[in-house]
């Protein structure tokens, strides 16, 4: 094992092609334990694909991904075990509509972690309280607002006690007034020392929570720096252009 212990995620020479479309063109990335990394970039730049490759929702065309010192492979058992350690929050929430908020949060705990019904419920309630909606435990997703659904989705991931949380544009499908409630939860998480990789264009969140920021374009990491460095001193023309476009309003 050549990986240093501090890097909980190591991505090496990651390529991903969808037919002729080259979504990722050799991405290299190291994420330290407990750090918050925000990924920005224009649409189609491969941000989401990279995130989805990290927990193997997309199988890489080539390259290596190491999670907590273990190389990810397609072997089902190891894959399931590793995925349980990586929480993923989706743009469209992907709550299970046939289950209540509580059941959404308890199901994987019971099925994957093998926890008892009571234990799972207790942990689920803690997580629902943490995201601020314990009173919605018995509500079905369709009765919840977008912001509430996303917070249940975060609780669902957190209940598995993951080592890493991946956020794939968690606020881009939300009405403006609901964005804050989700970002607040994410800020809390960041301050508690969770390792987070977020694809997000919420610049306020990026400024206050991100340790590192990555700018991607055309399947490559163009710039990997601190938020300060990016906003005040972008190195590449492509980055400058992108920032000028998203920050001018």
């Amino acid at each position, binding site marked *: 094992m050549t990986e240093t212990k501090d890097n909980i995620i190591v991505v090496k020479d990651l390529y991903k092609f969808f037919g002729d479309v080259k979504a990722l063109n050799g991405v290299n990335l190291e994420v330290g334990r407990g750090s918050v990394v925000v990924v920005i970039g224009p649409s189609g730049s491969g941000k989401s694909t990279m995130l989805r490759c990290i*927990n193997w*929702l997309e199988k890489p065309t080539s390259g290596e991904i190491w999670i907590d010192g273990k190389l990810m492979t397609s072997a*089902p058992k190891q894959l*399931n*075990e*590793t*995925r*349980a*350690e*990586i*929480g*993923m929050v*989706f743009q*469209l929430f*992907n*709550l*299970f*509509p*046939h289950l209540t908020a509580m059941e959404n949060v308890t*199901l*994987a705990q019971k*099925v*994957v972690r093998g926890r008892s019904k009571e234990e799972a419920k207790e942990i689920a309630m803690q997580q629902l309280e943490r995201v601020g909606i314990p009173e919605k435990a018995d509500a079905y997703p*369709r009765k919840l607002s977008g912001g509430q659904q996303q917070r249940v*989705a975060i609780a*669902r*991931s957190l209940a*598995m006690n993951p080592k890493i949380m991946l956020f794939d544009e968690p606020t881009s499908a939300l009405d403006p007034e609901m964005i804050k409630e989700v970002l607040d939860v994410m800020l809390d998480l960041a301050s508690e020392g969770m390792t987070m990789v977020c694809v997000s264009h919420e610049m306020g969140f990026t400024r206050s929570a991100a340790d590192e920021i990555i700018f991607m374009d055309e399947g490559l990491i163009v710039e990997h720096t601190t938020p300060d460095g990016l906003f005040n001193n972008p190195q590449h023309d492509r980055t400058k252009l992108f920032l000028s476009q998203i920050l001018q309003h």
Partner: protein
Amino acid sequence: MADKPLIPTGPLEIEDGGISFSKRLNEFPWWFVAIILIAIWVFLIIFTKEFLFNISSEFTNVLNADQVTEQLQAEFAANDITLSSNAKITIKDADKKWEIEDGRTNYFIYAEDQSLEVFSWGEYGQAFDFIKIGLKVTIQTALTAYGFALILGLIAGLGRLSSNMFFNNLARLYVELIRGIPILVLIFFIALVGVPAVVDGLNAFGVWLSDKGVAPLAAVFTAFNNQNISMNARAIVALSVTYGAYLAEIFRAGIQSIEHGQMEAARSLGMSYPQAMLHIILPQAVRNVLPALGNDFVAMVKDSSLVSVLAVRDITQVSRLYAGSTFRFREAYVTLATMYLTMTVLLSLLVQALERRLRSND
């Protein structure tokens, strides 16, 4: 509970009401009312006793004594009815009500003021009485076959979506093979060729096993015998295998209708593919396809009539027997058609109610 708009929309509401009334009139299912009325009418005919003739009240004692006397026989003969001497008389209510059971025909005798009135089931009633014997077989066949078809269909449906090349092709082969052959031909083929072939195969396997010295297990396989497998069982196998292929397509469509994000969310939590299928995808998919599954059950009840070609005594076969032996084709087939119609209409109502409930839950 629809919320009333805060601002009253007067003229619009009046127009709305007008539209909805004529719309309701246009959309009202008159055809359905007609079907129900036809069914009720036929059942009234079936269940109304037909008045035959009067006999003298002198026979009260004879009937009470449970005796078929020559006088009684003569009285019946005078009305062109042969009453056999070993007909059985049941006293329903002494001095008032009797029932005579003579072979396939039942006579009902009621005491009136001065005489006794003799009734019998009308010809439709007799036909119904005879045909209803097959109801149990029809219902049993349809329910059992549907149960097996559900299991087969689910497995084949999952197989069609499997990334495993072997299972995928096997499932595809099964579905295409079955859907390309008429059901009637399949029933003949499976019952008279398929089942015997499988049984022979199992027997041969049993013999092979006993040669290898695994006697207890071998006994299980050699226990099958083609002569022991009834036509009813073969009919159930044939219908199950046939409908399994149809249900497979329903399950496949249902599973595919679930957003891909559901599977991704489940897998991202560490669930295996089977776990995600069982806990996340299937509950939603089955709920979506319940109406389609219900419709196929109705279709299967109708198609169960085809097993009559195997001489399985379902209502169709029994009707054919009745018609063949009495030449009362009209009575036999009107009754049969009404029985199927009643079953399918009731089942369709159930499916519709289920559909409405599912929709109101969304």
